[in-house]
């Protein structure tokens, strides 16, 4: 049969728009619900992204860097015998990668700090005072005293909690005790020049910071180190940086770890937060979906006879399906666009001042969170919100559209 039925897109659109305008009150209520839902979803996503981004940045910049290179097995053993003996081999590579913003070398080992009668187990971190500032922002967390001074070999900085525990004050002589790679225990006198408060309890409770050169001599390490800490130009380039080093360095000699692997708890928390964000999206999308489905089904019920007539005069069932689907998609498109716009304006208005949660600061400190959360609307979030809403639109539209194609013509035409 050569005869065909055709309708232009403009006719479909005209029908969809006029059908939506048919019951203006219902359409307005549906749109307002959607705008509210999507705006709230946008704000919640932006808050989630904002605090995740802050948390990630705090974690990376306060201590770990984007990636660390160790001698193979060091992260598990934490033993100075597993050390990088030729750091030059690694640091030479840094120059050739524009994605690397900076790096620093460290020696990390556990030890004991004591002053007067007080003592506590500590994590000794020896670093180059200048290079460290290129990679982390730990120097910005000195709340009392000064950062490690160049040329001052016996300077010591302690985490606020550890200083409290052992009763050390600025200027005090503090004796640090540690084990050399060969196994003998040695001690050295340092002078407390600064107190660090990073906001992360596990750092503030254990950290003791000393100059790298001093540690290399004291622990008889020569030029050896335990960590090379790398900072990438962007968080997103972490994997690229890890891949680049993995290509150049032998995996028999080195282990290259991205920040996510250095603290599994933080990684798990980030994953949980991502999942939590998805759950929020899912809940809002389900609400929107039910709302649209309800509106479309009521509208379908009201137009049962008219749809019968439209089919009777020559509209195919596929065209009916397309008409109703387009109606649902159009409704969600308008609602989602306006909702996203409203949400973006809300995010924009809060992005300057942020949301102050200092009342709950203690609860959040553990997770490297700032007391003020700045919402951050990322492209990923926008795609996720609008993409999921579009899928919801299709789902909400498909059922009524399919139902419309199943209508019995004779029954539809008999309705008075």
């Amino acid at each position, binding site marked *: *049969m050569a*005869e*065909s*039925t055709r309708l232009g897109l*403009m*006719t479909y659109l005209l029908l969809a728009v006029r059908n939506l305008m048919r019951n203006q009150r219902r359409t307005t209520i549906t749109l307002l619900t959607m705008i509210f839902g999507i705006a709230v979803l946008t704000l919640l996503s932006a808050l989630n992204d904002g605090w995740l981004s802050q948390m990630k940045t705090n974690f990376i910049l306060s201590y770990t860097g984007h990636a660390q290179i160790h001698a193979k097995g060091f992260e598990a053993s934490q033993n100075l015998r597993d050390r990088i003996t030729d750091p030059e081999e690694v640091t030479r590579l840094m120059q050739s990668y524009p994605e690397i913003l900076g790096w620093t070398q460290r020696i990390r080992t556990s030890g004991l700090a004591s002053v007067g009668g007080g003592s506590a187990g500590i994590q000794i971190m020896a670093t180059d005072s200048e290079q460290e500032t290129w990679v982390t922002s730990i120097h910005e967390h000195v709340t009392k005293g000064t950062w490690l001074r160049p040329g001052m070999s016996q300077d010591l900085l302690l985490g606020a909690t550890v200083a409290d525990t052992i009763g050390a004050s600025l200027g005090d002589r503090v004796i640090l005790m540690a084990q050399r790679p060969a196994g003998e225990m040695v001690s050295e006198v340092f002078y407390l020049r600064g107190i660090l408060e990073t906001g992360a309890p596990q750092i503030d409770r254990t950290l003791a910071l000393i100059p790298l050169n001093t540690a290399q001599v004291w622990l008889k390490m020569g030029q050896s180190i335990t960590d090379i800490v790398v900072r990438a130009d962007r968080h997103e380039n972490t994997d690229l940086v890890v891949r680049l080093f993995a290509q150049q360095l032998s995996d028999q000699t080195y282990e290259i770890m991205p920040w996510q692997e250095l603290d599994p708890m933080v990684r798990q928390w980030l994953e949980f937060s991502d999942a939590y964000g998805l759950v929020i999206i899912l809940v809002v999308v389900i609400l929107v979906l039910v709302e649209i489905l309800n509106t479309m089904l009521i509208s379908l019920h009201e137009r049962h006879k008219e749809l019968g007539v439209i089919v009777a*005069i*020559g509209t*195919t069932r596929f065209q009916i399906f397309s008409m109703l689907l387009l109606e649902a998609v159009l409704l969600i498109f308008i609602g989602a666009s306006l909702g996203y716009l409203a949400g973006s304006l809300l995010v924009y208005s809060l992005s300057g001042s942020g949301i102050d949660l200092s009342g709950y600061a203690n609860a959040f400190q553990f997770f490297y969170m700032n007391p003020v959360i700045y919402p951050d609307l990322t492209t990923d979030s926008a795609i996720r919100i609008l993409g999921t809403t579009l899928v919801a639109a299709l789902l909400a539209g498909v059922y009524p559209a399919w139902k419309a194609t199943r209508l019995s*013509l004779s029954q539809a035409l008999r309705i008075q």
Partner: protein
Amino acid sequence: MTSIIKTHDLHKCYWVGTMPHPALHGINLDIKQGEFAVLAGRSGSGKSTLLNIIGALESADSGSVEVFGQNILEMTQDQRTRFRLHNIGFVFQAYNLIRVFSARENIAYVCQLQGKSKEESLEIANHWLREVEIEHLGYRRPDQLSGGQQQRVAIARALASDPKIILADEPTANLDTQTGRNLIHLMQDLNQRLGTTFLISSHDPDVKEAASRLIKLADGQIVDEWSTIPKTPTSIYSDCPVQNMPFGERVQFMIKRLIRWRRIRKPSKKNRRRS
């Protein structure tokens, strides 16, 4: 005249739960091209069911329905839809216009379904609005039109797809007597001028009187049937007892009727406006 609709031993039964309700019982029908045929009968006699089956809106339980030589009962849903679009025009009791379209858009819609451009479709719509004498109301939505005006739009819509048959289900049932008569007059006029076949289900006496062929249904069966040569549009007004008049007056009356009949058959613009 050529047969355009043929039904053979058509049966249809509706089921309400486990209770059968026979609607058609062995209908054999043959409608010729250009007929102004009326299906008459009480409610529940099977008129609408027969019309729906012939119009490919509904299926039959057994038998065959050939429209232009094609057995429509063997067609798929989409084939039936295309068949309706290109061959059959529908006029419904409740007008059934698309509420969100204006009168003109309602008519243009079927042309667009046929693949015509929007401009061409609107031109065709204007032509048919002129034909049904409501060109000035083309921009109005159905809810801004009277029942008679809506039914005229429905007739224009049915004709816009250039169908060979118009199926009308109780087209005058929702109209007052005078509007109903005007509508019948219009359909008769279109039937005679354009040669479009009309198959109308109705129990309106005016419609029955206008029929060139009357088919009476009762309990799903054809119980009576007669046909005449097509009547003139004026026949529905033939309530004057001519036979009782003296010969001179009778001749004078017949000449006047003939003049009037010719005007209605081919009305001038002035007369059309007046009517």
